[in-house]
């Protein structure tokens, strides 16, 4: 299968400066994401997974970022700040090989949601508790496609349905507290997808959920990837979860990529000591009642 790279990160360094010292969160990180792949970023807490993902679209303002983030895919982005009446005039082509680190804040906000979109860990805190779920999704849609309210509602309902929520009219009118954790996370996915992005970054989207719900959400992501030709960058500390869904796993340790493994015929086989250690910690290949070598 010949695949196309849609995102390429080259020599990314992310650091935070405090009064007298500099904290390097990510050091010399390079990775690429293939079109339509399920790419996983795995590592312990504090290994720099999240800050890498957020820095793709400069969502951590206090960080100083060097290196390049090439958006190879191109595709359409939205003219957010121009006054346009029709949808067609509203679309601009994003040149291939755009370096996201060189874009202005204004250009980036056209990019966020439209090409790269996010789903975060805790669905309860990422939704606004005071606004109905439907309206929150409408808002996202209207920001990217200046159409009528009715049009946006139609689109929102269609997206709520596509994330396999039942009784979408009720969910549309519901406030976040009226939904369960799994339903909220589905609504978040619908919101992330409403502007039809190419890449969905899912940052520990199931950590706050029960195991059975976790499985359902992952199945949903897997189906959406096929039906929408979506690319997924999945961030987790659970290597076991990554191993059952990913095509490629990047193992991160202390801000660096310790290993890149692709799915082989017999799943993943880690080469580095750290990768093997993580595998054992996930109780893979460890017999019951035996000590784990970590």
């Amino acid at each position, binding site marked *: 299968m010949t695949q196309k790279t849609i995102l390429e990160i080259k020599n990314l360094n992310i650091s935070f400066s405090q009064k007298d010292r500099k904290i390097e969160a990510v050091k010399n990180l390079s990775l690429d994401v293939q079109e339509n792949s399920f790419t996983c970023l795995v590592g312990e807490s504090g290994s720099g997974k999240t800050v890498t993902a957020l820095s793709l679209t400069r969502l951590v303002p206090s960080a100083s970022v060097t290196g390049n983030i090439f958006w190879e895919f191109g595709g359409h982005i939205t003219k957010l700040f121009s006054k346009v009446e029709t949808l067609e005039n509203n679309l601009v082509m994003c040149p291939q090989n755009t370096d996201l680190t060189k874009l202005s804040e204004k250009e980036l906000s056209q990019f966020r949601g439209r090409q790269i979109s996010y789903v975060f860990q805790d669905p309860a805190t990422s939704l606004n508790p005071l606004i109905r779920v439907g309206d929150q999704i409408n808002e996202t849609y209207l920001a990217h496609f200046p159409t009528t309210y009715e049009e946006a509602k139609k689109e929102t309902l269609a997206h709520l349905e596509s994330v396999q929520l039942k009784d979408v009219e009720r969910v549309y009118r519901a406030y976040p507290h009226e939904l369960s954790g799994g339903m909220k996370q589905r609504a978040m996915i619908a919101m992330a997808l409403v502007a039809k992005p190419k890449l969905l970054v899912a940052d520990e989207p199931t950590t706050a959920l029960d*195991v059975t719900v976790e499985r359902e959400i992952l199945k949903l992501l897997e189906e959406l990837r096929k039906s929408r030709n979506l690319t997924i960058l999945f961030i987790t500390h659970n290597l076991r979860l990554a191993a059952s869904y990913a095509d490629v796993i990047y193992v991160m340790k202390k801000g660096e990529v310790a290993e890149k493994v692709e799915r082989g015929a017999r799943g993943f086989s880690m080469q580095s000591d750290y990768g093997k250690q993580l595998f054992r910690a996930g109780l893979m290949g*460890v017999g*019951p009642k035996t000590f784990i070598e970590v």
Partner: protein
Amino acid sequence: MFLEIEKINKSFGSLHVLKDISFSLKKGESLGIVGESGVGKSTLIKIILGLLKPDSGKILFEGASLSYFKKSDWKAFRKKAQIVFQNPFSSLDPRMRVRNILEEPLRLNGENSNELLRKKMNTLLKEVDLPTDFSNRFPRQLSGGECQRIAIARALSAEPELLVCDEPVSSLDLLAQAHILNLFLKLQKERKVGFIFVSHDLKIVRHLCDSVLVLQGGQVCEIGPCLETLERPKHPYTRLLAEASGL
């Protein structure tokens, strides 16, 4: 029999949480309790520890019923049955140093000499693989895994025969989890501590427990030896959970 639970029922208002729960545990044996959130796992362990009274049913600890316990019986029972909670940050007092957290239960159990206290505390810290100079730290200066080890050390200070753990590793990172699991195994093998292990991760239950109890809708839907039950589940719900945990 070490611990016997017979036909426990518990309701909160009109909500019937636990229905006719029965099981038993031999000394030094470990039992895993699994089920979805809200199924009554935590209520069940509160009842086992005598922190909540059941509406009906019996709990026998070493043959004696908890409902006839006198004050002195409770004192002895509390020493023998200890608990470790899910969130290590909220189960440790943020204003106490590790030293005080560990010394307090030792003192309550009748240890007065300062020198012996220090010695016992150092052994406890060593047992949970922490350096002894951690005794001066506050919980906020420790990582989640380290905090959980302190919570375990505190539980061990009473030299319990039964350790009840309510999702002790679910808020921890994979590597920290592995260290805690190793620690539990060591306690099982060396100290012969019995465990009641509440979790929604069947993989961890399979790793640590001898038998497993699956709760669904407040009822026991399957109970049996761990490996057998999880590899060949009879009940469809157990199968669903086993699949979800990637077994």
